[in-house]
């Protein structure tokens, strides 16, 4: 229990003394002009979940179409739009902002013992720029959609007649929202830590978000310039990517993946950060190898900039570059492995309580292990020749992104739900949904590994009959996964109708956010907390330190 120098007077569960941030102000304007990081986090949460729903609908339609070879419910053009929009919405509108902007915005200042993020106005600007980007994305969807794949590879993207320019501009705008969040968090973590909280007394969630912010700030501008160049190529034919004018399509892939590979670490690092919070709390045990995990997060952040070429082993890239990128790719695998082993060691000899967040953490460990290990096939040069652009790659990144980040996001959502909304959710329904999601996910994506190794290319509207059984199996799996996710949404929303019944610290967490009320008061802490102990110190608390040291 973080030793709060002057303990705030004890609060009866459910009756916060000062009004909490939800009730502090009323009315629509108090939300859309709020500078409170907690409200911005909640607004981000609902917007991000809406986009997850939209992306999920596209996913279900894609899987439904692939139930049978040839036309099942839509034409080839519609299918190409469906998988492109599924990719674009899920990546730019859901998974990149999801954890840092919603849970991160809400929890980071609380964990640091701060009243707010460093630049509240910039935080609000980041949210509204996200909304503007989302609007442009929807406009692109409505005016004919995009059929280039979320990667916008030229020269197809520069010659496609669909509304690629609008979607490119939407992604360009969303880039700024991501940069502003990154800049905000870097300044917050550097300067707004509670007195006594040195770097190594900050929770590992802070390290994960810090590493993510570094990548957001360093990688997103290159996405910005890539998209500007793509728009210039489409509108003015400037000639950098168009081979007819002397340009080089492989150069576009370099520009695109220089952002997009670090972007996949923007997605997974916050997921890992949440797992580093959940496991110690539900094992009632100090984290194993705190510094190892902290250093791994930052190491991943920097090495992730060196490896983008493994997306281009078969693209006609020089053999020398492919060899160098393959070597560097295997270096980035080590910190991820170290983290998984450290989490396992944390559970060793712990006192493990399988509440819903811990259930999702366990699922994360297993699914992320498969995701990470299948990356070995794609990092090795020879096997990547066979497996590149097949369903093996689709299965790999869904195991890491859905099995990793989305499962961690749902786990984090359950972990901080009482703190965010002051209500407990139904544990029974949470367990049912978790089992459904686990089964549905595996039934959907395990067959895709075999589809890939047997040579089924990705983004295929029509496929050979020999692949049909596995596709049917995968489609049925997607229904189960969809059902599980809807149940989660159901009981979480249902919990909002109850009155405040969440205690300040329902799970026995030791980080600072559990020392304030649930939901927290408007400026987070009655008195500025002074930190004297380790972030995950579960050892029985010594005699309380003399007040006001």
């Amino acid at each position, binding site marked *: 229990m973080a030793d709060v120098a002057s303990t705030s007077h004890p609060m009866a569960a459910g009756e916060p003394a000062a009004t909490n941030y939800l009730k502090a102000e009323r009315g629509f304007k108090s939300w859309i002009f709020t500078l409170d990081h907690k409200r911005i986090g909640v607004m981000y949460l609902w917007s991000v979940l809406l986009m997850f729903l939209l992306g999920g609908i596209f996913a279900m339609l894609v899987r439904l179409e692939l139930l049978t070879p040839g036309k099942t419910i839509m034409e080839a053009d519609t299918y190409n739009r469906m998988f492109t929009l599924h990719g674009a919405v899920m990546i730019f509108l859901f998974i990149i902002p999801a954890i840092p902007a919603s849970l991160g915005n809400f929890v980071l200042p609380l964990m640091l013992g701060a009243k707010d993020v460093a630049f509240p106005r910039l935080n609000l600007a980041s949210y509204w720029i996200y909304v503007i980007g989302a609007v442009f994305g929807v406009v692109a969807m409505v005016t004919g959609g995009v059929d280039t794949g979320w990667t916008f590879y030229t020269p197809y993207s520069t010659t496609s007649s669909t509304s690629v320019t609008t979607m490119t501009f939407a992604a360009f705008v969303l880039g700024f929202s991501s940069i502003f969040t990154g800049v905000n968090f870097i300044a917050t973590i550097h300067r707004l830590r509670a007195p006594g909280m040195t770097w190594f007394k900050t929770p590992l969630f802070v390290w994960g978000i810090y590493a993510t912010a570094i990548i957001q700030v360093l990688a997103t501008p290159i996405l910005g310039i890539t998209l500007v160049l793509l728009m210039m190529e489409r509108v003015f034919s400037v000639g950098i990517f168009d081979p007819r*004018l002397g340009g080089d399509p492989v150069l576009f892939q370099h520009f695109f993946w220089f952002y997009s590979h670090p972007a996949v670490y923007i997605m997974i690092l916050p997921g890992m950060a949440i797992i580093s919070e959940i496991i110690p709390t539900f094992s009632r045990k100090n984290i194993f190898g705190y510094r190892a995990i902290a250093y791994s997060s930052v190491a991943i952040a920097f090495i992730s*900039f060196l490896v983008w070429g493994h997306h281009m082993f078969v693209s006609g890239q020089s053999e020398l570059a492919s060899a160098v990128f393959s070597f560097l790719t295997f270096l980035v695998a080590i910190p991820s492995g170290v983290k998984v082993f450290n989490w396992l060691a944390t559970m060793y000899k712990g006192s493990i309580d399988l509440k819903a967040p811990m259930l999702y953490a366990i699922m994360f460990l297993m699914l992320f292990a498969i995701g990470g290990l299948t990356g070995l096939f794609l990092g090795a040069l020879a096997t990547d020749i066979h497996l590149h652009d097949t369903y093996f790659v689709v299965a790999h990144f869904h195991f890491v992104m859905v099995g990793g980040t989305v499962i961690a996001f749902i786990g984090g959502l359950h972990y901080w739900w009482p703190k965010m909304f002051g209500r407990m959710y139904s544990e029974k329904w949470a367990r049912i949904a978790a089992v459904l999601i686990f089964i549905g996910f595996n039934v959907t994506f395990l067959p895709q590994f075999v589809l890939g190794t047997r040579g089924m290319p990705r983004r295929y509207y029509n496929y050979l009959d020999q692949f049909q059984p596995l596709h049917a199996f995968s489609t049925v799996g997607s229904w189960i996964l969809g059902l599980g996710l809807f149940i989660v949404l159901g009981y979480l929303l249902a919990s909002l109708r109850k009155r405040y019944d969440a205690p300040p610290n329902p799970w026995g967490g030791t980080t600072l956010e559990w020392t304030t009320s649930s939901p927290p008061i408007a400026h987070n802490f009655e008195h500025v907390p002074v930190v004297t102990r380790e972030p995950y110190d579960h050892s029985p608390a010594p005699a309380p330190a003399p007040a006001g040291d």
Partner: protein
Amino acid sequence: MAAHSYAEEKKINTAVLGSLLALTALTVAAAGIHFESPAVNTIVALAIASMKASLVALFFMHLRYEKPINAIIFLTGIAMLAVFLGLTLLDVDYRATPRPANLKPPPGGFTAGVEPAKPGGTAPPAAGEAAQPAEQAPPAR
């Protein structure tokens, strides 16, 4: 910067401006000289520009007098740019450069006078030779 008084700051800044203008004159002059290969010209120009940029960053942007975190952030940005250029060149320099050798013009598109079937377009790397491709005429279409 609190250590320096306003007058001292003015002296330092004026000296920095003077050297910046001198370096500008130097780089314009250097561009006039024809070194043996254009690459040397570019390196010289970049070196002078980097000197000017570091002067501006250290003195005008107070990097020299403030907490090192700001300088670290700035240098990390430049390091990432160097990584991006370096690893991309690892590919671009060791691969056949695209030539519009056999491309049909874009439908109603703009070709800027770049005729599609230019003879002598780089042919594929000869069998067994990974690096620089030999300049063979493309096979007759």
